[in-house]
């Protein structure tokens, strides 16, 4: 069975119900999403937005309340649909009795790899993730960053066509993040689909070519990264705008809000901005500021989710530091 989409969901929904109280909580609310084959797709959302539940439904760890999910056109509930999938879970707990090589061998066997392929691939992957000297060491002696790299090797073990990575750089230092990013970049152009579930905006912004943002279990935004980030605009703030002018302006603007007694709105181009300014002058409004802008993923995220910058700044600074290091090198 072939499909143009590595992941395809239709109205996928998960509602949790408390047994005693009967209270319900909608983790994912009828999500319809399509991830093209070969894309690098980032799934964003605030904590509790439903990202991990969505991923778990794709991999049949969580049963959907309604809707369907398919992997390469095959129903995700069928265990065979997961054969071309490699998965690195968030908060993984790999059995500590394994050595690095032993763990790869075990999960490789579960994926259906032959003993010969497993042996060859273990050597390749340990080298790729920089753990070639650690293959015979029990993983209880591994650091968090080493475990993440080993987890990534595990996900790549059987050369899957779809990599689902849930917070792959969680707990990893900047150098380790760069290493992981380099490994993933190495898959670019190979046809492997990478589905990245992350709360690190700049990680998604620099790596992914598609992004979807979840808000309270709903798909708040989905699009091609380049389209979203080149969304230039002009933010205009004006006072004393009468009702009629306000109606005209808001119909032209992509976003608008009233801040204290001023109207702040965004238009998509300089031409639109000139038209809006003409309207404001004709209505006798006082133009306070005209600022050209360039949307970042952070802007979009904040706009969509209503998150505050301070809430996402600490992790962003860390990632930004990593990015800066990378540029300097």
């Amino acid at each position, binding site marked *: 069975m072939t499909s143009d989409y590595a992941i395809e969901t239709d109205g996928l929904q998960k509602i949790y119900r408390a047994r005693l109280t009967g209270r319900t909580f909608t983790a994912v609310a009828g999500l319809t999403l399509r991830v093209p*084959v*070969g894309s690098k797709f980032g799934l964003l959302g605030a904590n509790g937005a439903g990202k991990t539940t969505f991923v778990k439904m794709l991999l049949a760890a969580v049963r959907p309340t309604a809707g369907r999910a398919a992997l390469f056109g095959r129903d995700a509930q069928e265990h065979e649909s997961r054969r071309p999938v490699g998965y690195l879970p968030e908060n993984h707990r790999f059995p500590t009795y394994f050595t690095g090589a032993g763990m790869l061998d075990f999960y490789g066997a*579960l994926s259906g790899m032959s003993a010969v392929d497993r042996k060859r691939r273990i050597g390749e992957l340990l080298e790729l993730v920089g753990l070639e000297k650690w293959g015979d060491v029990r993983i209880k002696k591994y650091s968090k960053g080493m475990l993440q790299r080993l987890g990534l090797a595990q996900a790549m073990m059987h*050369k899957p066509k779809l990599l689902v990575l849930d917070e792959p750089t969680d707990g990893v230092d900047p150098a380790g993040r760069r290493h992981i990013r380099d490994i993933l970049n190495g898959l670019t152009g190979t046809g492997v689909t990478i589905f990245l579930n992350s709360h690190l905006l700049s990680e998604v912004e620099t790596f992914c070519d598609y992004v979807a943002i979840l808000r309270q279990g709903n798909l708040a935004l989905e699009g091609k990264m380049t389209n979203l980030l080149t969304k230039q605009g002009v933010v205009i703030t004006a006072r004393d705008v009468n009702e009629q002018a306000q109606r005209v302006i808001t119909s032209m603007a992509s976003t608008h809000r009233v801040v204290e007694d001023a109207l702040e709105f965004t238009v998509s181009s300089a031409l639109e901005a000139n038209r809006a300014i003409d309207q404001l002058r004709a209505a006798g409004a006082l133009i306070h500021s005209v600022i050209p802008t360039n949307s970042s993923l952070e802007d979009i995220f904040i706009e969509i989710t209503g998150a505050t910058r301070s809430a996402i700044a600490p992790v962003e600074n860390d990632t930004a530091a990593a990015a800066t290091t990378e540029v300097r090198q």
Partner: protein
Amino acid sequence: MSTEAEVLRPVTGEYQSLPLSTSPLQVFVALIWDTIQEARARWLFWGLFGLSTLLILFFLFILKIDVVQGAVSFMGLPVDAGRRIFNIEKFVRTAYTFVALFLYVWGTFLAIFASAGLIPSVLEPGRIGLLLSKPISRPMLLLGRYAGTLLVVAVNNIYLITAIYLIIGWKTDVWYHSFLYAIPLATFNFAVILTVVVLIGVLSESAALSLMVAVALMFISALLAQRQFVVNLLTSEWSRDLWQTLYWIVPKTWELGTVMRQLILKEDPPYWIAPVLTSATFALITFLVAISRFQRRDY
């Protein structure tokens, strides 16, 4: 929505997928091997075999001090040349029976203690999610874990019971091969109890609770087996019916021990069909319920 075909990337490069087997046998073997590795790492494997070895050494020591001859004299059995062999044989047969029953109880309890954690451990968050992401069915996952645990215990039973058999036979020169029936019977009994461990493990993810329920079930089974005596004491019809019903539902740990005694002593034709069949039915239903619950759970 960016779902149009125009956004698709071309598939290029030399990333060639590997040929992947769909054989369930490979997965089954991998799951069994994983269970054995975990048992080894948790010292359960070594603990089980270590305690069995201690018991074997203890028997060796007991027989080394010629307790057989001493016990024969103590019991007042005639030791004249004409009847000596017969009486020794009778004594050894009785000794075999007691030893077999001891090993049956010892082995089962030890095995339950050793294995109670092996099912819940695989259901830990962060571990089960990854296992479920592999192309294996949930029943296969549970079955592999069950089989791995059973294999560890079966190997220990073979080791312990065969060693005791060899020691007694070597010392007395009386070889009762029927003693070895203790291996399949003890293993079968454990296989039945293990399904309860699996079910409670799936429902509660608690090793302690699995252990408590399994041990309690063994005691209840022994209690229910005294039905002839207890039913006579019960005054109401419904309580007698309840006792009888429970007796037929619960696995027959006690009766399986009796079957083993009968097989070793060769005294009566063993009444094994009902205990084995009802216990096997109990195990099958319990395991199917465990699979059903496991398939419905979110992790």
